[in-house]
């Protein structure tokens, strides 16, 4: 897919396509993808494809090129293609990222680019994992506003400072890049994981919410916040730039304070 070519939509000002394409550098890469389809394979294997790509292409473009031109059975999730829907978290050169936000030019192209499914969640097919355990943890921390007061006829007021308190954690797109980069989660699938804690944070620190104590109790569980060993993998992995470790630390502090 040549997303990089700006095609001119105006008949009067049309440019020959070749002229536009020449302006954009192309280069050769090798894409190496971990494949597994339990329907046909007894175990996973790697497939490699040499590809010619454009300077502005992303890993998602390379995956599409394979799927659309070379091997239609290569399977991965994607939708928005610009980092807002959270569909395509995968392990690229050993790091969790969104394929649609990872520019090829930012990777070391002298070696094959390796792409694997995110770890710690069961692989369903190629780069597709079972997201259910991830959403299960999310649902358990009560990810919704609880306010038992009489619903006001107008809006509830909230100061700018109170609103800023949880701004960072409202950005989460539930991509699971953080949770599936966490060594504690790899060894203990019961651990809530960073994403669930981030979303708990979003409500615990919302001045309009009244169920903070219940969430803190849930997270004080043996599979809760205390399992976090502050390895910072999650913060590095988050494509939304959320300070995940900081959010977890704030929740830890709140659990501690509420236990006193």
């Amino acid at each position, binding site marked *: 897919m040549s997303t990089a070519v700006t095609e001119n939509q105006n008949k009067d*000002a049309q*440019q020959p396509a070749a002229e536009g394409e020449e*302006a954009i550098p192309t280069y050769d890469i090798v894409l190496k993808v971990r494949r597994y389809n339990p329907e046909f394979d007894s175990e996973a294997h790697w497939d490699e494809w040499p590809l010619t790509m454009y300077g502005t292409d992303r890993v998602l473009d390379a995956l599409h090129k394979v799927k659309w031109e070379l091997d*239609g059975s290569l399977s991965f*999730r994607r939708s928005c*293609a610009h980092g807002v829907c959270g569909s395509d978290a995968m392990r690229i050169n050993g790091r969790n990222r969104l394929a649609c936000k990872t520019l090829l030019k930012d990777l070391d192209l002298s070696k094959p680019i390796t792409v694997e499914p995110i770890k710690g969640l069961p692989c369903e097919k190629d780069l597709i994992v079972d997201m259910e355990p991830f959403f299960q943890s999310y649902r358990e921390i009560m990810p919704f506003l609880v306010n038992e007061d009489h619903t006001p006829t107008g809006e509830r007021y909230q100061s700018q400072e109170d609103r800023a308190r949880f701004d960072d954690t409202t950005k989460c797109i539930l991509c699971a890049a953080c949770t599936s980069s966490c060594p504690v989660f790899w060894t203990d699938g019961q651990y809530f994981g960073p994403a669930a804690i981030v979303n708990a944070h979003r409500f615990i620190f919302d001045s309009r919410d009244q169920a903070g104590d219940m969430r803190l109790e849930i997270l004080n569980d043996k599979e809760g916040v205390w399992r976090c060993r502050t390895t910072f993998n999650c913060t590095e992995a988050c494509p939304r730039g959320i300070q995940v470790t900081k959010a977890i630390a704030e929740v830890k502090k709140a659990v501690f304070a509420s236990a006193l």
Partner: protein
Amino acid sequence: MQVHKYDVVIVGAGGAGMRAAIESGQRARTAVLTKLYPTRSHTGAAQGGMCAALANVEEDNWEWHTFDTVKGGDYLVDQDAAEVMAKEAIDAVLDLEHMGLPFNRTPEGKIDQRRFGGHTRDHGKSPVRRACYAADRTGHMILQTLYQTCIKHNVEFYNEFYVLDLIMVDTPEGRRPAGVVSYELATGELHVFQAKSVVFASGGAGKVFKTTSNAHTLTGDGMAIAFRNGLPLEDMEFVQFHPTGLAGLGILVSEAARGEGGILRNADGERFMERYAPTIKDLAPRDIVARSMANEVREGRGCGPNKDYVLLDLTHLEPAHIDAKLPDITEFARTYLGVEPYTEPVPVFPTAHYCMGGIPTDIKGEVFQDSETTVPGLYAAGEVACVSVHGSNRLGTNSLLDINVFGKRAGTFAAEYARDAEFLPVPDDATKRTEALLDNARSPHGNEKVAAIRKDLQDTMDLNMQVFRTAETIQKALDDIAALEERYASISIQDQGKRFNLDLLEAVELGFLLELAKVMSVAALHRDESRGGHFREDFPNRDDENFMVHSMVYEDPSSPTAGIRQETKPVIMTRYEPMERKY
């Protein structure tokens, strides 16, 4: 094959589907079928805001909002519907606030509001601050908040279930819905969902075009399914091209960038919108700005090596202001174009953004089967539907509003209908057509590739059906589509498995796209005038005498125009007489 039974089945879990589910789920047994996990829906990509005349920061009222909507839509808006939307907007925003949506706040702690194109005080006097927002991720916050509320209410989701057909049966009262046929991505199994009410909330069809702000998955499934079941589609010639897509990529830079003070400039550095819309300049409605930009490029004042884009200049804004109000979209410019918006202007060009047309409904969300009668039990809401509140050109922030107001209405009325209705028997051959569709896509006919046909379709639509159209270009698109349909008959797909066979589904989705491209082109060919998003260079003026009507197109093999029959439906006018649209 599994059979499920629900009072209400909702197709789609974007903003419209989930807003409907929150109402319906509390009143009737409801299932939401969605081809994506709910939070992956493209509502989450919406940036700028959702408007309502709250008057939190300056004087405003719903009547001004109604007027702006009608005028913005170049008078093709059904005015009763626009009035409902503008009035109910206030509760729609308050509902979301009560559900927990983190709106940006004023210093007093009220929901903050900002300017957006085409929204004015007192019938066009000056721009008004009407858009409620959460930074530049308003759609993300709406989608998250609605999903969270669905979890709170235990709404039942069937994730990664593709609806591929609607089951309609004949009754003494006429044709009625009996349920839907769905394909489960994980297993490749077909499921029948029997239901008393069906709500389509499956979003838009931007992938008909190459340059688009829409997700890969926005392939117009709901519209195509309705059309294939003999239902009409309304006003399909009207597609909105958003002025500011990142050049060459189509990724959206919200109008909020101009609302916050961004300025469009041509290669001479000129603020060219001063020439096209002297009063509100860069904040003129989208169709006008998009055409002005395309015209600058066409007349040789474009920027870059190919002179094929213009520039969005934010460099006069404070970096801190940009960070506070436009963090995501400036990040897009950095990531995808390598441009630093603090110091460099951003290359932009119009991108296919929104379908004003869709499945025709009344203000309850009930679907029309012709220009007069609706089908009780069948509903549509959101971008898939045409109420019509957007007429020939939607105002920014009116869609997030539309999905909330009419999503809520459709969910409520679907549940109410189901309360008194009986289940209709599902015919034995209900899945026959879907099985044939899938078998056809799976069996090797030749060596045509889905992606190649899709690319050619998108290329011809960008070239011939974009912001400037003529009878000749439209006919060219139709000829190309006919040739592509022939190639489509000899596709072969590679994945022969049952699990997560996205190869197969892309083939099915391409079938929907081809159908809709044809529908859009036929409707565009009939409308010999220019109005809103539909601009015909061979008929550059609006022609109220002949075309102040909605177009309604039906599948009809006997029609000589690509097997599509064109009829019309009157526009509902209440308060406002059509005037020339000047800004």
